[in-house]
């Protein structure tokens, strides 16, 4: 299967281990990722927070570039990118006027004919195949699957999984042999980019999430978004400082867990780049 790949800015920087693990896992599952040549930033958050039309035109441009490739699907692993690309697609489908406005802005033609998908969506449609390829099941680890906001909401845009009680990541993790915990904060917001201008708020939000996961008995939290990852991973030190509670819960990308289960050496999955060391977990240390 060949798909157009939209890594997005974060995956080249703060979310680099997501990019690394995505590529490894897709190789193992014979998904041919072809990066969209010349893609530009999706404009996440800042564009839509300040300029509605711009926030649609930027992702639409990258989609227009992808239309030149021989593919039907565009994959954006980053939840924010997925969300913005999907906004351009759905709002243009729902409103011809919007579509025409965007088309006029773009220097190249855009037919809006590609399907935008996230990786969970793709993987959850090949669970059987994945199960059969799992060589190193992680049976001795309890995971809290954290979906965050942007994969699921707003539902009329994302059109993916149940926005209040999503299950795709849980199913995927179970296919990797892991145990998943039932917990209450799997779709609560981490505060996203407020982490820079208002770290205090993000500390508050991530504290609740980490606390809920820990209470539910999770050894680690699995995410599908570089924002979520950054906040949950990097803010644990601040939480320790301000709230006096040290969680030390490793935060992993779902692709990293999947990679380990598929037998990819942990070294090749960027596991050493997290701030909270995942090798604190005996289940990972042994590999």
């Amino acid at each position, binding site marked *: 299967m060949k798909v157009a790949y939209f890594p997005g800015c974060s995956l*080249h920087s703060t979310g680099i281990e997501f990019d690394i693990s995505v590529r490894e896992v897709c190789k193992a599952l014979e998904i041919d990722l072809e990066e969209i040549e010349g893609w530009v930033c999706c404009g996440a958050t800042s564009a839509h927070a300040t300029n509605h039309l711009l926030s649609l035109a930027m992702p639409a441009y990258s989609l227009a570039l992808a239309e030149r490739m021989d593919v039907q699907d565009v994959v954006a692993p980053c939840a924010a990118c997925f969300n913005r690309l999907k906004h351009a697609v759905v709002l243009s489908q729902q409103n011809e006027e919007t579509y025409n406005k965007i088309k006029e802005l773009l220097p190249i033609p855009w037919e809006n004919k590609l399907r935008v998908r996230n990786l969970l969506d793709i993987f959850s449609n090949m669970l059987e195949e994945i199960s059969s390829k799992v060589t190193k099941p992680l049976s001795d680890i309890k995971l809290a699957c954290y979906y965050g906001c942007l994969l699921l909401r707003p539902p009329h845009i994302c059109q993916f999984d149940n926005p209040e009680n999503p299950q795709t990541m849980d199913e995927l993790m179970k296919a990797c042999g892991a145990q998943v915990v039932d917990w209450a904060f799997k779709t609560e917001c981490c505060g996203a980019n407020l982490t820079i201008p208002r770290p205090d708020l993000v500390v508050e939000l991530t504290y609740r999430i980490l606390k809920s996961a820990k209470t539910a008995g999770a050894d680690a939290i699995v995410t599908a978004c570089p924002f979520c990852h950054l906040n949950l991973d990097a803010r644990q030190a601040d939480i320790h400082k301000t709230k006096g509670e040290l969680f030390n819960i490793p935060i992993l990308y779902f692709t990293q867990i999947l990679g380990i289960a598929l037998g990819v050496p942990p070294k090749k999955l960027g596991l050493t780049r997290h701030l909270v060391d995942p090798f604190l977990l005996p289940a990972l240390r042994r590999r």
Partner: protein
Amino acid sequence: MLDLVADDTLANQIKEICGEDVRKCYQCGKCTASCPLSFAMDIKPNQVMRMAQLGLRDVLSSSTIWICASCASCTARCPLDIRISYVMDALREIALKEDVSPKEPNIPLFHKIFCRWVGWLGKLYELGFIMEYKLRSRQLFNDIAMGIKMFLRGKLNPFPSTSPNSEVVRQLMEKTGQK
């Protein structure tokens, strides 16, 4: 006491930008109930909707419109199917356009700098963008330990990566009147 003169200019502006009709709101409060950040907001989401309905432009200088993280919990649960997160976006857009002095100046600053860097390079150069933001918001020493750790783990790329199509982004920004 508020001398109330209802005015639908603001409601119409919002509708023009994002297509949402704030007049539909019947004030059940489910948005406020759902919002993970309502504890930090000076005006709660349902009150934002109310002010927008009546055309009270003070809403544009609230902290709420900037603190909203666009998580869309409100939108997913609104019984009247109003996309409240789009209303928040629209209010921010209006506030910027009208140069309303924001109660949370660092957040719009963050967005502005973000967009500028993306305009230059076509992609976001996180390190450069954050450095500029820190300088201009005078929060230079915040998060410095975290930043160093991230840098050491190769999570902050020292060199900007540029899209060959940065010129297109610049033009898009120009055409859409991005400041």
